[in-house]
């Protein structure tokens, strides 16, 4: 057994203290023959510190495309020659999307907008949309609207948004290679305000942007320092027309190593499968990740791409004897 896994068994599983950056790097560079052991340990950690339940979430894009930012992975940037056109979702369709999500048994519904930060029109749409959902659908509402002012943070709290997603996307040292129109520190400032407001912090990123394995470890350590309630883990799905459109997808074993490593860095967080798992891991890898530290999934479609049918994921959770976290358990 590699020394790092022995250390993790004592420190993370036993004491609930996550691995530091060096420890995460050691897990990320484990030889293939030790991957199964790493995943098994990460699963034990998840079961001990989080329990068997899986949090299920659906997401929808309220405002698609036309974003002024240049996140190099994103097909919704207006600065690239992506085929994604700008579209707004009307309130009745938003409520219908929340109903579709609730019908899967999900406890979370996240409303997302492709913006630098919300303007008055978007905040008005949010206010009306969240109110309409809360009136008709039994589900927790989360939001992801880019960088916020303190006033906007306060407004979202007042609307009843209980969790806010704002991904750091990648580690601090690599961020300027991925985004040039705003800084990692600006994102951190929004996260600070969200935390202080009492909303739950949801912050993760995307693996496979061209970062080194050392930078992947740096990212895990920086997320652990932030200590978010939830970490959505995406794997790059290269989008036509974006600067990263020709990058290779993350190799399946590297993705699984990352899942185990991020779990061992953050034993108590909600670690969510997000975009890209279908092309990176496929069905078998999805199962391996759920048995290797993942305890939350986005079901159904993503913002501009499609996911596995929700029924496939729910059937898998049933097979794995992993109960879906009930809405009542989140309130």
């Amino acid at each position, binding site marked *: 057994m590699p020394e790092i896994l022995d250390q993790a068994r004592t420190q993370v599983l036993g004491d609930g203290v996550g691995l530091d950056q060096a420890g995460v790097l050691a897990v990320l560079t484990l030889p293939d023959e030790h991957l199964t052991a790493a995943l098994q340990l990460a699963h034990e950690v998840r079961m001990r510190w989080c329990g068997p339940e899986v949090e299920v979430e*659906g*997401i*929808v*894009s309220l405002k*698609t495309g*036309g974003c002024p930012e240049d996140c190099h992975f994103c097909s919704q940037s207006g600065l690239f020659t992506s*085929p*994604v*056109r*700008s*579209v*707004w*979702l*009307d309130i009745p*369709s938003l409520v*219908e*999307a929340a109903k*579709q*999500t609730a019908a*899967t048994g999900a406890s979370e519904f996240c409303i997302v907008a492709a913006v630098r930060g919300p303007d008055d*029109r978007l905040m008005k*749409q949010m206010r009306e949309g969240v109110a309409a959902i809360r009136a008709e659908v039994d589900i927790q509402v989360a939001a992801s609207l880019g960088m916020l002012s303190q006033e906007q943070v306060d407004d979202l709290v007042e609307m009843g948004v209980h969790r806010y997603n704002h991904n750091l996307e990648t580690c601090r040292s690599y961020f300027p290679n991925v985004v040039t129109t705003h800084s990692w520190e600006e994102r951190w400032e929004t996260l600070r305000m969200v935390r202080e407001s009492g909303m739950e912090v949801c912050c993760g990123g995307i693996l496979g942007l061209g970062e080194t394995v050392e930078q992947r470890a740096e990212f895990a350590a920086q997320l652990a320092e932030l200590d978010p309630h939830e970490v959505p883990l995406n794997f790059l799905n290269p989008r*036509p027309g974006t600067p990263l459109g020709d990058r290779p997808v993350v190799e399946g074993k590297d993705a699984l190593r990352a899942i185990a490593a991020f779990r061992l860095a953050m034993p108590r967080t909600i670690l969510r499968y997000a975009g890209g798992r*279908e*092309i990176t891991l496929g069905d078998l890898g999805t199962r391996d990740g759920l048995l290797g530290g993942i305890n939350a999934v986005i*079901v*159904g*479609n*993503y*913002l*501009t*791409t*499609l*996911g596995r049918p*929700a029924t496939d994921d729910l059937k898998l959770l049933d097979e794995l004897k992993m109960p879906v976290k009930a809405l009542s358990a989140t309130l």
Partner: protein
Amino acid sequence: MTDAGDPTDEDRTTRSAVLTSAATWCDRCGADATAGPHPGCAAARVLEPPRYCGHCRRRMKVQVLPVGWAAVCVEHGERRG
């Protein structure tokens, strides 16, 4: 679905249109689809909605929902999947 808020009359009109003729353009990359198959695009389309109208090559307004998607061509109407 609109790029300016609530649905416009134009949206409502195009939603009622029906597609009848064979596609000429690849609905993923917008290239000529009559010269031969696009196996890469066909594979990718399993996990992507269409982006181009197969009849006129216009980029469509596409809304992905938790279950399904809707794509609107201003000339040829709406497709759902």
